[in-house]
C-alpha cells in the first residue's frame, strides 16, 4: 500500500505538478480540454454532449472539469498538466493539436486514461478517436444527387487531413452512385473556425454553379446560413444546425460520442482501459444521420434507408471497389475493399472531385 502510494507520488513528482485535491476513491475526476467555445453547435458542443451521457450514468461519481477555447500549443500542455495535478484520472483531449503534449503526459502517468480526438498516435493509456464521417456523408451525397439541378456540389473544408478527405470522398461516391455526371468542388480554408472565410468560400462555390453545400468540419454555421440565404441545400457535421437553415437544411451527419465515452470511462473504472485507435461509425452508433430534409423524394429516402442499413450492418462499405482516383487510375479493384489503414491515411481524391488536393 505504502509502495503504491509512493509510486503514485513519484509519478506525480515526475509530472512535477501539485496535487491539490487528490481525488477521493468514490469520485472520478475527469478533465476535458476543448479547442473552441462549447457554444450551441459544433465540435466542442458535440464532445460535451457525449460526456453528458457519462454524467447521466454515473451521476455524482464523476466530476467534470471543463476548460474550453484553449489554443493548441505550450499553454495547452500546461493546462493538461494542471488537470492531472488537480487529480484528473480520465482526460478527454478535444483537439488534434493536443496530441504530442497529451502523449507525453500519458506516458508519465500510466495509471490515468486519455482519449484524444482526431490524432494517430497510440499508447497503452492513450486512445485516439475519430468518426467515420464518410459513412454519413455517403448518404448525404445520395440525397444531394436527388436534389441538385446543376449537378455541381460544393464543399467548404477545414484542413486536408485524412479524416476530411475521406469524408469528401464518401460524399462524392454517394452522389455519383446516383448520378455519375455529378462533380464536386472543394475549397480548403485551413481553419476550423473562420466565419468570414467560410462564408466567402460558400458564396464562391455558389457563384461557380454549385446548388448544394457541404460545410465540412466548420465550427460555425456560416456556410449553413449562406445556403439558406441563397436557396442552396446544405448539410454539416457534428451537431444539427437546422435552425440556421430552416427551409434548406439537408440534414446532419451527427457524431454521438456518448457510447464511446461511456464505454471508455467504464473501462477506466474497471481498470481495463486499453489504448487503441478508436475509429467509430454507424455500427458503433457514433455516426448518426438525422434531420433529413422533407424535400428529398420518397423514393430516394427509401434508397438511403436501405443503404444506411447495409453500411451499418457491414454488408456494404463506402470504400468498396471499383474506386478510381482523380487522375482516372483504378485504385481499388472491383470486389476488393480499401483497407482501414489506407482510409485513415488517405491522401487522394476520388474521381468526380474537380479541385486538386493541396499537397
Amino acid at each position, binding site marked *: 500500500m505504502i509502495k503504491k502510494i509512493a509510486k503514485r507520488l513519484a509519478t506525480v513528482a515526475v509530472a512535477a505538478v*501539485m496535487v491539490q485535491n487528490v481525488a477521493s476513491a468514490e469520485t472520478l475526476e475527469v478533465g476535458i480540454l476543448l479547442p473552441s467555445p462549447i457554444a450551441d453547435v459544433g465540435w466542442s458542443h458535440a464532445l460535451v454532449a457525449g460526456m453528458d451521457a457519462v454524467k447521466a450514468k454515473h451521476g455524482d461519481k464523476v466530476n467534470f472539469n471543463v476548460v474550453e477555447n*484553449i489554443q493548441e500549443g505550450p499553454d495547452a500542455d500546461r493546462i493538461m498538466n494542471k488537470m492531472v495535478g488537480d487529480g484528473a484520472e480520465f482526460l478527454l483531449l478535444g483537439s488534434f493539436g493536443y496530441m504530442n503534449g497529451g502523449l507525453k503526459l500519458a506516458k508519465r502517468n500510466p495509471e490515468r486514461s486519455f482519449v484524444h480526438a482526431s490524432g494517430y498516435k497510440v499508447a497503452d493509456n492513450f486512445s485516439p478517436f475519430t468518426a467515420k464521417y464518410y459513412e454519413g456523408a455517403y448518404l448525404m451525397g445520395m440525397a444531394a444527387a436527388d436534389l441538385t439541378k446543376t449537378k455541381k456540389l460544393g464543399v467548404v473544408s477545414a484542413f486536408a487531413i485524412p479524416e476530411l478527405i475521406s469524408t469528401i470522398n464518401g460524399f462524392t461516391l454517394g452522389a455519383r452512385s446516383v448520378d455519375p455526371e455529378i462533380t464536386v468542388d472543394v475549397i480548403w480554408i485551413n481553419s476550423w473556425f473562420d466565419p468570414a472565410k467560410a462564408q466567402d468560400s460558400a458564396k464562391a462555390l455558389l457563384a461557380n454553379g454549385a446548388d448544394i453545400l457541404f460545410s465540412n468540419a466548420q465550427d460555425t454555421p456560416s456556410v449553413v446560413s449562406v445556403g439558406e440565404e441563397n436557396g442552396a441545400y446544405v448539410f454539416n457535421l457534428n451537431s444539427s444546425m437546422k435552425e440556421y437553415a430552416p427551409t434548406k437544411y439537408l440534414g446532419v451527419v451527427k457524431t454521438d460520442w456518448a457510447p464511446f465515452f461511456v464505454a471508455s470511462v467504464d473501462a477506466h473504472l474497471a481498470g481495463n482501459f486499453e489504448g487503441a485507435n478508436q475509429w467509430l461509425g454507424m455500427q458503433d452508433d457514433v455516426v448518426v444521420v438525422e434531420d433529413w430534409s422533407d424535400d428529398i423524394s420518397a423514393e430516394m429516402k427509401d434508397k438511403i434507408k436501405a443503404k444506411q442499413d447495409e453500411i451499418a450492418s457491414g454488408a456494404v462499405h463506402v470504400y468498396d471497389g471499383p474506386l478510381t482516383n482523380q487522375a482516372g487510375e483504378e485504385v481499388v479493384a472491383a470486389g476488393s475493399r480499401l483497407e482501414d489503414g489506407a482510409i485513415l491515411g488517405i491522401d487522394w481524391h476520388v474521381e468526380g472531385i474537380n479541385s486538386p488536393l493541396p499537397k
Partner: protein
Amino acid sequence: MQLRFEKRLHQSKIMLLAAPFIAIALSVVLSCILLVVLKKPILLTFHSFFIAPFENFYSITEIFLKFGPLLLIAQALAVGFRAKIWNIGAEGQMVIGAIAASAVPVYFVDSTSGWLLPAMIVLGALGGMAWAAIAAFLRTQFNANEILVTLMLTSIALQLLYFLLLGPWKDPMGFNFPQTVMFQDEALFPALFSGVRLNVSIIFPILFTIAVWLFMEKHYGGYKLVVGGLAPSAAGYAGFSSKKAVWGSLLLAGFAAGIAGMSEVAGPIGQLQRSMTSGYGYSAIIVAYLGALNPIGIVFAAFFLAVLHIGGDVALVSAGLPISAVHIFQGMILIFYLSAYAFVNYRLRVVQPVTQPDSAVSS
C-alpha cells in the same frame, strides 16, 4: 469649481512607484465584481492567480518559461519605443525566426550533429532581423509608417508559416496535418532540470537584459538613440543619425524576437506548428510599457505578467474561470496601469473659475 489636467514640471517619483500598485488594486476590485456576477469563487480565483503559481517547483519553472521570451522581446522593443520607433510586429519577427531556425531540423532530419542548435540560433536571429529589416528599409527610404508595416508583416509571416506547414515542410508521416516533424533531441535545448520544460535558452533573455541595461544607461549610443527619437532635428544638429536609430532599434527587436521564436520551437514545442508564438510578440508590448521602458522595470513587469499568465491557466482549471475572464483581468491591469501612469507626468488640479468683476459689465 473646475478640474484641470495639467503637466507637471517634474515627473512624480511617487506616482512612478505607485502606478503599478494602483493598477493592481483597481483590477482586483473590478475583478471581484466580475467574479461575483459570474458566480465564481473569489478567494480561490485570487489564490490561483497569485499564490498557486509559486506553490510547487514545476509551476515556478513554468513561470520562468513564460518569463524568458516576454523579457527578451520586451527589452528590445523598449529600446525602440524610447527612440519613438513603434515596432508592434515582434510577433511576425518571432514567427520568421522560428521558421528560419526550423529549416535546420526539417532539412537535416537524421542529423545528430552538435552544430544543429548553434546553427538554429544563428538562423533564428537572422530570420527575425531580416523581417524587421524590411520595415526599417521602408521607413528610412520611403518614410513608410513602421506601425503599419510591422503589423502587416506579421500577417504575411503567419501566411508564410501556414504555407510551409501545409506544403513543403509538412511532416511526411504526419497524415497531412499542418506541422513539421518532431525535432531530434540535438535540435532541442536541454532542460534545466529533469521533468520540467524550462531549458537553457533562459540564458538569452538574461544576457540580453544586461546588455541592454549597459547600453541604455552607460553607453553614449543609448543616449543618442533616445535623443534621435525625442527630437529628430535636434539629434540631426548634434550629428546623431535618426536613420541609424530606426535601423538599430528594428534590427535589435528582430534579433530578440527571432531568438525568442527559435527558443519556442527548439524548447517547449519541439516542432514548427501553426500556433507557436503564444502571443509573446504582443504581450511584450504590454511588458515594455508596464516596465516604464526601463530595463530593470521590464524585468519585474515580465515576471509579473508571466505569473499572471500561469495564474490564469491555474484559474481556468482550479477555479473554473472562463478564458475570456482571464483575458479581461489581464487587460484591466494594463489599462489601469497606463491610466495611472499618466499621472506621473500630469496632475489634476482644482481651479476656481475666475469670477467676472461687475465693473466690467457696468462700464
